[in-house]
């Protein structure tokens, strides 16, 4: 019998996870895929989600949490609608990533690791994004933005604000 305290995964989530299990040698092998699938539906992985995934994969929640917390792109705390992954590795740093971060922080009133009050954005640092020829760069959601400067930031955030209106 299932514990009433642990929510069920949605049919969509279960179907996507089971697709992965179909070509894996054991259920626990898809732990990272399963965490990513649930996160793609819910934005982050809550304790309750973690327990539901663990139950589906026949793992302990503690073991799964050890995996979830290892990876920086599995979010164990709520994040905003859009996650900003700002590259602060070497070439972007040379090209002014620190100033870009200050601009973003001033605009959205958040520091690294924080979510804006309107829940639109979470700002996180990320390892070199592999676009050093176009530094400084950042990802907003899945969109890569390159050659960042004040004007570029203005364009990115204003067009997003307009799109929401």
């Amino acid at each position, binding site marked *: 019998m299932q514990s009433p305290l642990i929510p069920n995964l949605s049919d969509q989530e279960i179907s996507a996870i089971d697709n992965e299990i179909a070509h894996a040698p054991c259920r626990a092998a898809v732990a990272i895929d399963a965490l*990513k699938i649930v996160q793609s539906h819910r934005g982050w992985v809550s304790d309750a989600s973690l327990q539901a995934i663990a139950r589906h994969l026949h793992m302990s929640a503690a073991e799964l949490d050890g995996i979830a917390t290892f990876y*920086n792109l599995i979010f164990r705390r709520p994040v905003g609608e859009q996650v900003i992954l700002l590259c602060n*590795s070497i070439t972007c*740093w*040379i090209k002014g990533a620190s100033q870009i971060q200050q601009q973003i922080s001033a605009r959205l009133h958040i520091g690294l690791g924080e979510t804006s009050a309107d829940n639109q954005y979470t700002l996180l640092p990320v390892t070199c*994004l*592999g676009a*050093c*020829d176009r530094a400084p760069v950042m990802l907003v959601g899945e969109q890569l933005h390159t050659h960042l400067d004040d004007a570029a930031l203005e364009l990115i955030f204003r067009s997003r604000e307009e799109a929401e209106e």
Partner: protein
Amino acid sequence: MSLDRPLTRNVRPDRTPTDLAAYEANGGYQGLRRALGKLVPAECLQIIKDSNLRGRGGAGFPTGMKWSFVPMENASPGHKYLVCNADEMEPGTFKDRLLLECDPHQLIEGMILAAYTIQADIAYIFIRAEYHLAAQLLREAIAACNAKGYLGENILGSDYSLTMHVHTSAGRYICGEETALINSLEGKRATPRAKPPFPQVSGLWGRPTIVNNVETLCNIPHIIERGADWFQALGLTADAGTKMYGVSGRVKNPGCWELPMGTPIREILMEYAGGMEDGYQLRGFLPGGGSTDFLTPEHLDLAMDYDTIGKAGSRMGTGTMIILDDKTCPVGFVTNLMEFFARESCGFCTPCRDGLPWSAQVLNDIEQGRGLPEDLHTLARQVTFIGAIGNTHCALAPGAMEPLASGLKYFREDFERHISGGHCPWCDGGVN
């Protein structure tokens, strides 16, 4: 004379991807047609061995030799795996992204040929989470290959079958270490494994596994199609083939170019990258990513290949240079890298987990003007003890020590000026 650039022949200036039809129209899958049913795996292996192809992920290990360790005739029954390492995350490295986004079929053809050579029946592309476009293109390319008979059961009517999957990662630089990558593919924490056993014998799920970098695998179709002698002749020095070279930092034209292996550094920097931006002078550079030793302007006439750069006291690594200019603080530069490596330590072994944050703290103190003269001794001791291969579980921490060790060697006066002056001469976080 026009240069032969096999890896980037389908790369368009606007970076739009090459689809299956365009890839085939430009000679794609000819290497595969040449091999399957006509060459036995041992013959393919011999061609790759003869070509002198070396791993393009950074270590430069001979690819044919790596593959030769996979048990063949006497292999125990069960799966064998080929894994493409598309977890490009080395600071300052942006070459695999170009190959993945512009010509996904070239990689897939290389993987099918590599898998055929070691008789693997399952292949994975392990790609970093942030490469959304590349992952999507690869999934579409694999679907197209399944429909066309390049992948799946009895490829091109042969008795060889191969299944290919894309695995998108969930972050962490350490996943690029091949045994950590294998643990991550198994759904675990990406902690590197002890070696031996080596993955070629006991890798994914304890089965023989080859892990190769994107650029390495992209070379395979061309070598199989055109032969080892052709490939050898592409290089200007003892190392064979072409290489994806890159330059980033304060240069006029940062970018990535396929050039003959052994192209002089000066040519890459001046002709392709256009030289330094106006108002900036070259002080030094990391030749191949964040975990390689600094070289200086006196090294500009060296050939960019594994052995030459190795003899100069650094490593060619990924072949993508990071430029240190005169308006960027060398201490800040090294501090940024050390903070990166400290953040990315997997935490398994103490010298790395505790040593790298210690180094980062000392460096940060110096950069912020709080450094003491004895801090330079502390850093030198860290280089000695953390930098020695064998003192740590994997190569991450020794790699982190390379820019520090060479930074102390070439820019010692700048470290000393921070300490004696009590502030960073470049101020404002180290960047002009």
